[in-house]
C-alpha cells in the first residue's frame, strides 16, 4: 500500500485534524495554559486583588523562603503526611484488594462496603471524623475508655493531628482498592497454576507472580496518591483550621490563607509554583527509581 499523496487530500486531512482537536486545544489554552501563565506573572507582583498589582520581580520567592517560617513548616507538615499516608495506604489497599479478589461468599457486599467511603463527600466525612475524634465524647475515645485505656487527644494535640488525618485518609481508600482489584483480575490464571504445580504456597504466588505483574499499577497508585497527599486541603481546612499551633497547616491551606484571608495573591502564587515544582520533582524521583522494581510485560526477564 502506498502512502497518500501530498496534495489537496492531505491538506484536508490536516484541516480536519485541527478542527477536531480545536475544542481540546481551546480548553487547554483557556483553562490551563492561560491561568498558569497568569499565575506565574502574578507571582512576580505584589497584589491584594483590590489595588493595582506592583511588579516586584522574584521578591515573593525570596521572601517565602527567608521570612515566612510558616511556609517551611507547612511543607514539613505536608511531607510528613505524605510519607506517613502513601505507604500505609498502599499496603492496606493491596491487602484489601487481595482479600476482595478471593472467592468468598458475599464478595460483592464487601466490595461495596470498602468502596462506600469514597462516595461520601469529603466535607461530610470530615465532619463525621471530627465527631469520632472528639476528645470528650468521640466514639473512638469512648471505646478506648470502655476497654480500660486512657483517652487520646487525636486532632487536639500537636503530635497526633497528622497521624489522625492519616487514619482518616486510610479509611478512604476505596478508589485505590478498585484499581488494585482491576490489576489483580488481569493476572492470568495459568501463572498461578504454574506455581501450584511447582509446589509453591500463597506467599510464592504473591512474591513471584502477583507483585511483579502488579508493579505498574503500584507505580500508578503511588504517584496519584502522592500528588493527592501533597495537595491536602479540605480536611485541615474543615477539621482543624491548620491547628493546633499550626501543626496541621498544610501547604495548600497556607496558600489559601495567603490568597484569600490575607490578600497576598502574589505570595500565594509564588507558593503554588513552588508546590508545582516540588510535586514534579517527587513524581520524577518515583518514576526514575521505578525502573529498578517495575516489571513490564514483554520485557525479557
Amino acid at each position, binding site marked *: 500500500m502506498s502512502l497518500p499523496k501530498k496534495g489537496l487530500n492531505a491538506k*484536508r486531512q490536516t484541516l*480536519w485534524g485541527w*478542527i477536531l482537536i480545536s475544542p481540546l486545544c481551546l480548553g487547554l489554552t483557556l483553562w490551563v495554559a492561560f491561568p498558569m501563565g497568569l499565575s506565574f506573572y502574578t507571582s512576580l507582583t505584589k497584589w*491584594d*486583588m*483590590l*489595588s493595582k498589582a506592583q511588579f516586584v520581580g522574584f521578591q515573593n520567592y525570596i521572601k517565602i523562603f527567608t*521570612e515566612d517560617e*510558616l511556609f517551611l513548616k507547612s511543607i514539613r507538615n505536608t511531607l510528613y503526611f505524605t510519607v506517613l499516608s502513601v505507604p500505609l495506604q498502599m499496603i492496606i489497599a493491596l491487602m484489601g484488594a487481595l482479600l476482595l479478589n478471593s472467592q468468598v461468599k458475599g464478595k460483592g457486599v464487601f466490595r461495596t462496603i470498602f468502596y462506600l467511603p469514597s462516595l461520601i463527600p469529603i466535607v461530610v466525612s470530615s465532619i463525621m471524623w*471530627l465527631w469520632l*475524634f*472528639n*476528645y*470528650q*465524647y468521640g466514639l473512638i475515645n469512648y471505646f478506648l*475508655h470502655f476497654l480500660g485505656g*486512657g*483517652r487520646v*487527644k487525636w*486532632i*487536639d*494535640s*500537636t503530635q497526633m493531628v497528622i497521624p489522625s488525618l492519616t487514619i482518616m485518609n486510610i479509611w478512604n481508600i476505596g478508589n485505590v482498592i478498585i484499581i488494585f482489584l482491576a490489576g489483580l483480575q488481569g493476572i492470568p490464571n495459568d501463572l498461578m497454576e504454574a506455581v501450584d504445580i511447582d509446589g509453591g504456597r500463597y506467599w510464592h504466588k504473591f512474591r513471584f507472580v502477583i507483585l511483579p505483574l502488579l508493579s505498574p499499577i503500584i507505580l500508578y497508585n503511588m504517584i496519584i496518591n502522592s500528588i493527592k497527599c501533597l495537595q491536602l486541603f479540605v480536611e485541615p481546612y474543615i*477539621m*482543624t*483550621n491548620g*491547628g*493546633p*499551633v*499550626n501543626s496541621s497547616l498544610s501547604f495548600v491551606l497556607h496558600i*489559601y*490563607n495567603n490568597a*484569600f*484571608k*490575607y*490578600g*497576598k495573591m502574589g505570595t500565594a502564587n509564588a507558593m503554588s509554583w513552588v508546590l508545582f515544582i516540588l510535586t514534579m520533582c517527587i513524581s520524577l524521583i518515583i518514576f526514575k527509581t521505578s525502573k529498578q522494581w517495575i516489571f513490564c510485560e514483554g520485557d525479557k526477564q
Partner: protein
Amino acid sequence: MKNRVVLFISILILIGAGLCFANGQKAASSDQVKLTYIYWGSPAEDAAVKQALAGFEAANPTIKVEPMYLPGDLDGSTYNAKMKALAVSNTLPDVGYFRPEEFGNYAENGYFLKLDDLIARDGMGDAYLPQTWLKIKGDTYGAYSAAECQVMWYNKKVLRDAGVPTPPTDYKNAWNWDQFVSYLKMITIDTKGKHPGDSGFNGKDIARYGVSYDLWSAMYYPSVWSNGGDIIGLDGKTVLVDKPETIEAFQNLADLMNVHQVMPHVTGGTNISPTTMLANGQLGFYVTGQWTLLELGAMKDLDFGVAALPIMKKPAQLYVSGVNVVFNSTKHPEEAWALQKWMMDPAKTLDLYTSGLWMPTKKSYYTDPSDIAKWLENDVHPEGFKEAVVDSMAISINEPIKIKNINQIWGDYLNPAIESIWIGDKTASQALKEAAGKIRNSGLLQGSY
C-alpha cells in the same frame, strides 16, 4: 460538503456568542430598579433577612431586591473569598453585609459609597449609637449592621442543683474572677459526683462543666480589657499582647481548662456545641456572642438566664458586628441607600431584634421606654437582659478592625500562640512574649486605616 460543515460550526459559535452578549444586555431594559443584597448567616438569619427584604419590596414597589445568601462560617474566609472574586470580576452587588476585618482595605481602595452627605441629608447621624458609623480618615463608608457583644448565659436548673446563688445582672457589680471560679468548681462534677479539688476527682471523666468560653479573636477582648490589657494598639504599630495584664487574662482563661478543670477543652472546633451542652445540663455557664440568643430563645424547654460578665479588674464590653455597606459600583445609589436605611431601622425589621439575633443601633431603642419595650419585652429575652447586656453597651469598645494586616497577625501569630496556651504546651507568658517578638519582626505592623 465539508465547507458546509465548517460553515455550520461557525454559525453555531456565532449564535452562542450572540446569546451570551444578549444575556449581558438584558437587565437594563425595564424601568424597575433591581438591587442585589449580599449577606451571610445561619439559616434562621437567612429567613429573617429575606423577610426584611420582602418588607422593603412591599414598601417600594418599583424596587426589586435579589438576596444573595452565603451560609455563615465563623472566620468569614469563604465570604471574603467570594467578595474578592466579585470585586475582581466587577460584579459586586449593590448593598449588603461586609466582613469587618476587610473593611479598611476596601474602603481605602474606593469600593464603598461615601455616606456622609446622605446621612446628613436624612438627619441620621445623631439618631444612632456613636460606635455604629465606620469612618476611614474622617469619612463614613459604612455602618455596623447591629450592636452585638459578649454575654454569659446560664442554665438555671444546673445552678440550683449545684447550690450556686443567682448571679448578679448589674454589669458594674458582677462577680469578681475568684468568686466566679469558686462557683464554677461547685458546678463541675465528674461521673462519680466529685468536684475539682476533692480527693479522687477524675478530670478526664467530667459529667458537668462549670463554664465554656467561646475562644476566637473578638471574644478575647472583653476579658483582656477587663484585666486592663490589650492586643495591638489602635495605631497599628504597637504590640501590647505581652503586657502583664494581657498575659494574666489569657492565663486566667487557660487555667479554667488546665488547672481548675471547670471548662471543656476546646481547640480546633472539635467540641460538641456548648449550646447543646447548656441545654443538656452538661454546662453551667456559657460565655459567647449575644446573637446565640436566636438559637437559645427557640429552645422552649430550656430555662436559661443571663448574668453580667465576671470582672477581672474592671467591667468591660465589646462592640462587634458585621458591617453594612453600599458598594460604589451600584447603578442606583439612591435606591441602594434607601435599602441600607431600611435594614438599619428597627421599626422596619423588628423580627431581627425580637428574635434575639441583633441589638439595635438606633439610640432611642436604648433610651425611650416605649422603644425598649418593642424589642425586649418578649419570651425570648430573659429577665435581667437589659441590665446585664443592653446597659453594658454604654461602656462598649469597638473591635479594633482598622489595624492593617490584623487578619494575618491573628492568623499567623496570635491564634497559634493562644492555642498553645489552651492545650497547655506553653504558659501565657511564654507564648505571648514569643508571639509579640515575632509580630514586631514580621513587617506586618504597618499602621491603621
